């Protein structure tokens, strides 16, 4: 029983991450009709916003101590973070909360980046073949990750969650079960809540604002909306920027779980495409549903009891489920006819 609950939690958590990335991807599909292979790179850029923020905070005053030397004979350097030197305790607090606080940095950065990317590049590919879109965005993804690599190196860079949410919570005890049976990290719960909040915000935005209504109409029938004299293109730019922000924030908040490195976007890329397609191209609820479904199934397939019967099932479960779903439901869980079918 406890195993099931734990794996369910794992699945929800994983699903939250998948859904967040897939959400932006499917938004871009649905509105702009663009296959964005650089979406993983946007996720990675978000994560590196957190890294950059942390690095900025930890900029150090370097003084040398001539009386001591390093093992290779140069004078020993003594480093004191600026922020600690100037702001004292508040500085420490900010450093402690650097991951959540860096959201403040990530939002404008990702907005700007999404805006530039759409206006400067994606815009010109609306009417090009999907293959061309794939090639150009894939090229962009490589360029972005190589730039990150040349700045930050290839090694993962650890980011820590704030002290207050660093450990694990004993959920079991809180529910009256034996203590220590169901333990779950605070940060993962924070991430799950965060994912839920972002998903809800995006849905609310599309559901309850006029802007959202136009975008939804555009997703349904772009041509007609264009005929109504509504400048749909400008709105799509904003949609793209929003998708970039969603991916970026997903990246920021994921850093304490997965120390970011330059390649993390590519690692998520294929998976997020599978999620989007299983959900149905251009369907936001579909992407969210598929994200959670695949996350949960993956968690359960990894259980020892199941692996004992079907060795290696955890390695292929996502793809297996994708195949089955696509064969049973031609357009994924909630896909519409005619989107990306040719």
């Amino acid at each position, binding site marked *: 029983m406890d195993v099931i609950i*734990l*794996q369910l939690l794992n*699945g929800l*958590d994983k699903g939250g991450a998948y859904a967040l990335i897939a959400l932006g991807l499917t938004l871009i599909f649905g509105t702009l009709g663009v296959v964005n292979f650089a979406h993983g790179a946007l996720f990675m850029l978000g994560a590196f916003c957190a890294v950059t923020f942390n690095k900025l905070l930890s900029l150090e005053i370097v003084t040398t101590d001539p009386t001591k030397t390093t*093992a*290779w004979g140069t004078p020993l350097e003594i480093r004191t973070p600026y922020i600690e030197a100037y702001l004292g305790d508040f500085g420490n607090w900010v450093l402690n909360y650097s991951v959540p606080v860096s959201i403040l940095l990530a939002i404008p950065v990702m907005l700007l980046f999404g805006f530039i990317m759409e206006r400067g590049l994606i815009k010109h590919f609306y009417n090009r073949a999907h293959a061309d879109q794939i090639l150009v965005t894939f090229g962009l993804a490589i360029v972005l990750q190589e730039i990150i690599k040349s700045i930050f190196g290839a090694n993962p860079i650890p980011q820590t969650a704030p002290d207050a949410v660093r450990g694990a919570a004993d959920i079991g005890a809180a529910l009256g079960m034996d203590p220590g049976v169901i333990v779950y990290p605070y940060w993962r719960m924070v991430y799950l809540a965060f994912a839920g909040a972002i998903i809800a915000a995006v849905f609310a935005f599309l559901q309850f604002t006029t802007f959202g209504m136009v975008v939804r109409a555009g997703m349904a029938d772009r041509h007609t909306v264009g005929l109504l004299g509504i400048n749909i293109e400008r709105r799509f730019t904003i949609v793209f920027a929003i998708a970039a922000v969603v991916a970026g924030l997903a990246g920021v908040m994921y850093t304490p*779980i997965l120390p970011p490195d330059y390649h993390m976007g590519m690692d998520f890329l294929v998976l997020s495409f599978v999620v989007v397609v299983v959900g149905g191209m251009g369907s936001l609820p579909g992407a969210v549903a598929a994200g959670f479904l695949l996350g949960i199934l993956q968690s359960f397939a*990894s259980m*020892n009891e199941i692996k004992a019967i079907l060795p290696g099932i955890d390695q292929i479960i996502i793809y297996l489920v994708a195949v089955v779903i696509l064969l049973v439901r031609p357009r994924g869980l909630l896909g519409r006819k005619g989107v990306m079918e040719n």
Partner: protein
Amino acid sequence: MSLIRKPLNRRSILRAGALGGAALATPTIFTSRAWSAGYLNEPTGAEVVLGFNVPQTGAYADEGADELRAYQLAVKHLNGEGDGGLLNTFSSKELQGNGVNGKKVAFVTGDTQTKSDAARASAKRMIEKDGAIMITGGSSSGVAIAVQSLCQEAGVIFMAGLTHSNDTTGKDKRKNGFRHFFNTEMSGAALAPVLKNNYGTDRKAYHLTADYTWGWSQEESIKKYTEGMGWETTAAVRTPLGAGDFSQYITPVLNSGADVLVLNHYGKDMVNSLTQAVQFGLRDKQVNGKDFVIVVPLYSRLMAQGAGENVKGIFGSTNWHWSLQDEGSKAFVKSFGQEYGFPPSQAAHTCYVQTLLYADAAQRAGTFDPCAIAAALEGFEFDGMGNGPTLYRAEDHQCFKDVLVVKGKENPSSQFDLLEVVEITPRSQVEYPADLLGGELGACNNGA
């Protein structure tokens, strides 16, 4: 049009053609093994070309970059530039800092991408185009084994870089291939006594193992030695390579009754699984009245950097560490640190040493003939390279030397000072019979 012409600009093309192969006096067209005189790629000019084949892209790119730094340093020292590094402490005094066998050492580089195919393609380029007489490098066992067998078929020497699987000098060993780095068998033998002293003999271990040959090799070795001292293995679970999120493998550990988690992961997998295991509060747990502990049998500094403070107090083994205080280690750290501004990693160390060992063997043999060099390396005893007295065993081309057991440092003084050496397990404790791991060296191939 100008776009595609640009990279193919005629002048740069011609120069690119001359690339690295300034050493190559002979035209490469129609050079074949039958054509060359005594052995493949016999150096005829004033230079001898070595091939440094390291990961430059992918997850191990930083490790590869460090290996490349070490190689460049080694070449400098061999050619008499810099402070001479380990040449000063090396027990063999054949090398004079004037090249090898009177020839200046030149090198070519390539990217393995940590993929067997790419690594072999890169090594082949070095052999076929650049005339490399020896290939070295690599940061994973799959690549090392693939390149080693290529070098065997082609007829050049392979000096393995970082490869930890038993198979490299076990069931996949080759007459032309040599490994200085240690292996999982030695990790197990060195680690077990330390674990026993710290955690006792009544422990239940849960293994998470990367699902490929190196992972299995390490799991087997660690199981063998920990079970030998009385530990019980609760479960050994295979995890897919590059899983990213390991939560679904970590949660079953919580209530499995195990009180030790052994992470048979390397690189990014290890960084992720350790970070997440700590997040799940495993290290704060009490099981069977004991503190729950995590063990990472193979450590590297780059991994420790990636996992950050999560490594504190966690035991593992390593081939070498820059904080060692013997003369050889101090000399290497000094010349590497002065050149690059930070201390070398164990990957850098093993690559540097391998280059010197190769050069020394060539010097002693008086030729670059792979078979003569192999003979000179086999059974070679040396010291002063940072690992104490070392033997290149003739039967399996594996170096036998002391193994370090390390622990994540509680209060690191810098981003490089993450591990502390808790024990130097003497060579005698980690030696094993040559036929233990199977395999067959076969005959030497000089490509002629």
